[in-house]
C-alpha cells in the first residue's frame, strides 16, 4: 500500500496545479517542486500576483474584456475607431486580434458561441448588450470575428438577424487558405470556400 510522501498542503498544491490547462499530475508535481525550491524568487511573487489578480481583475461592463478596471483599457483608448466593433467569442480571441494588430476598432466579447449540444443559448451570451451598442449612431460597422465552425457561424447569422434594424454594416472574416497553407493539404471544404471568395489579384 503506498504511503504518503508529502503533507496534505503540498498534495493540495499539486492537485490545484494539475487543473491548469496543459498540466497533468506529473507536470503539476514538477511545477510544485520548482515553486518550493524557488520559494523567495518565484513562489512568493506568484502568490502575490495571484492575490492582486483576485482582488483587482474584473470583467469590462462595456465589452466583456478582462482587465483591472471597467471600462477596460481598450474601451477607454481614445485613439481607437468608434465606428467599428469587432465581435469575438472569447477574451482569448480579443487578445489574438490585438497581438496581430489587425484592427483599430473596439471589441465585444460574447462569452461563447451558440451550442445546443453544450446547452448554450442566446440568453447565455452578451448579445443584448451588443445590439444596444450597435444602435449607437457613432457605430458604422460590426465585424463578426467568430470561429469558422458551424457553431461560430450559426452565432454570426443569429447576430446578423438581430442587427437587421440597426443602421450598421455587418461584415465577417474571410474563410480560405491560411498563410503557409499548401493547397494539397487543405480539406476540400476550405478549398471550395476559398475559391468562392476569391478576390481580384
Amino acid at each position, binding site marked *: 500500500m503506498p504511503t504518503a510522501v508529502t503533507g496534505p498542503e503540498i498534495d493540495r498544491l499539486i492537485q490545484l496545479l494539475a487543473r491548469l490547462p496543459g498540466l497533468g499530475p506529473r507536470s503539476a508535481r514538477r511545477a510544485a517542486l520548482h515553486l518550493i525550491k524557488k520559494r523567495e524568487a518565484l513562489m512568493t511573487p506568484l502568490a502575490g500576483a495571484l492575490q492582486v489578480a483576485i482582488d483587482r481583475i474584473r470583467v469590462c461592463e462595456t465589452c466583456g474584456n478582462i482587465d483591472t478596471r471597467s471600462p477596460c483599457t481598450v474601451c477607454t483608448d481614445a485613439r481607437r475607431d468608434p465606428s467599428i466593433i469587432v465581435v469575438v467569442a472569447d477574451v482569448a480571441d480579443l487578445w489574438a486580434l490585438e497581438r496581430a494588430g489587425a484592427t483599430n476598432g473596439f471589441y465585444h466579447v460574447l462569452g461563447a458561441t451558440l451550442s*445546443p449540444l453544450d446547452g448554450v443559448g442566446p440568453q447565455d451570451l452578451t448579445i443584448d448588450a451588443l445590439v444596444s451598442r450597435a444602435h449607437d449612431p457613432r457605430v458604422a460597422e460590426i465585424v463578426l470575428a467568430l470561429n469558422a465552425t*458551424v457553431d461560430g*457561424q*450559426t452565432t454570426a*447569422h*443569429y447576430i446578423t438577424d438581430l442587427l437587421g434594424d440597426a443602421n450598421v454594416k455587418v461584415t465577417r472574416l474571410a*474563410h480560405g487558405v491560411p498563410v503557409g497553407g499548401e493547397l494539397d493539404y487543405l480539406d*476540400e*471544404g476550405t478549398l471550395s*470556400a476559398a475559391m468562392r471568395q476569391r478576390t481580384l489579384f
Partner: protein
Amino acid sequence: MEWTDDGIVLGVRRHGESAAIVELLTRSHGRHLGLVRGGAGSRMRPLLQPGNSVNALWRARLDEHLGTYVLEGTRMRAASLLASSHATYGVTHLAALARLLPERDPHEGMFAMLERTLDDFDSAGGAAIHLVRFELAMLTELGFGLDLSACAATGATADLIYVSPKSGGAVSRQAGEPWRDRLLPLPPFLRAINDEQNCWSEQDLLDGFELTGRFLLRYVLEPRGQGHSDARAGFINAVVRKRAAAIPEGARTGAGEGRASS
C-alpha cells in the same frame, strides 16, 4: 469489439486537453459516441464539424464502453454550408433532431434521409421541404407517426387537405369542411398520394413546419422538458427571407413555383 461504418457528425465535445467525444449518426449502428484522440487539435477540427460525412472505425474492449473512433472524412460539407444562414441553422437543427434518437439503435432510414437532406442544402426552398419531411420521419421513427394516407373520418384517400390536431390523422376536404377553422392545413408536398407532392408555396412551407412542429413539441420535446431550438426558428426565417428576395411577392403566394428532389 470493432466495426466500420459510415457516419455523419452531429456534435463534438472537447475531452481533456487534446481529445474530443464525437457524436455520429451511423448507417448501421445508429447514434453512437466515441472518443477521438487528437480531436481537439487543429488538424482534426475541420473534419469534426456537424454535417460532415466520415468513415468511422470504432474500437472498444467491451461493447458497452465509450470506445475510440478513427475517422476519415468522406464528404466535407460543413465549409460550404457555413456561407448561408439557412444551411448553418438547418445543420444545427438537424443535429438537434437526430440527437432525439435513442443511442446505439440503428435507424438506417433516418441516416439516408439526413444524408440526402444535407446534400440538398444549396436551395433554401428545397432544404426546407427536406427538413419538414425529416421532422415527419422523425415523428414516425420515435413512434408518433402521423397517418396522412387516408381520411381519419371517412377513410377516403383523395382530396386530403387537413390534419386533425388531436389525432394527427389526415382529413379530407369534404369531411373537414365543418371544422376547417380547427384543423391544420396539410401541405401538398406531404400528401402521400399526390402527383403534386414536389410543389409548394411559401404558405405550404409554413403550414408544413406548423404541422410537424406542433406534434414534435407535444409528443417528443415537451415530455423531455424541451422546446423547439432557436435554430429551427432561425432556419424558417432565413428560408422565408431568401425566397422573398428571390421570388416576386405575387409568385410566392401561388402554388407550384418550387421543386425539390424527393
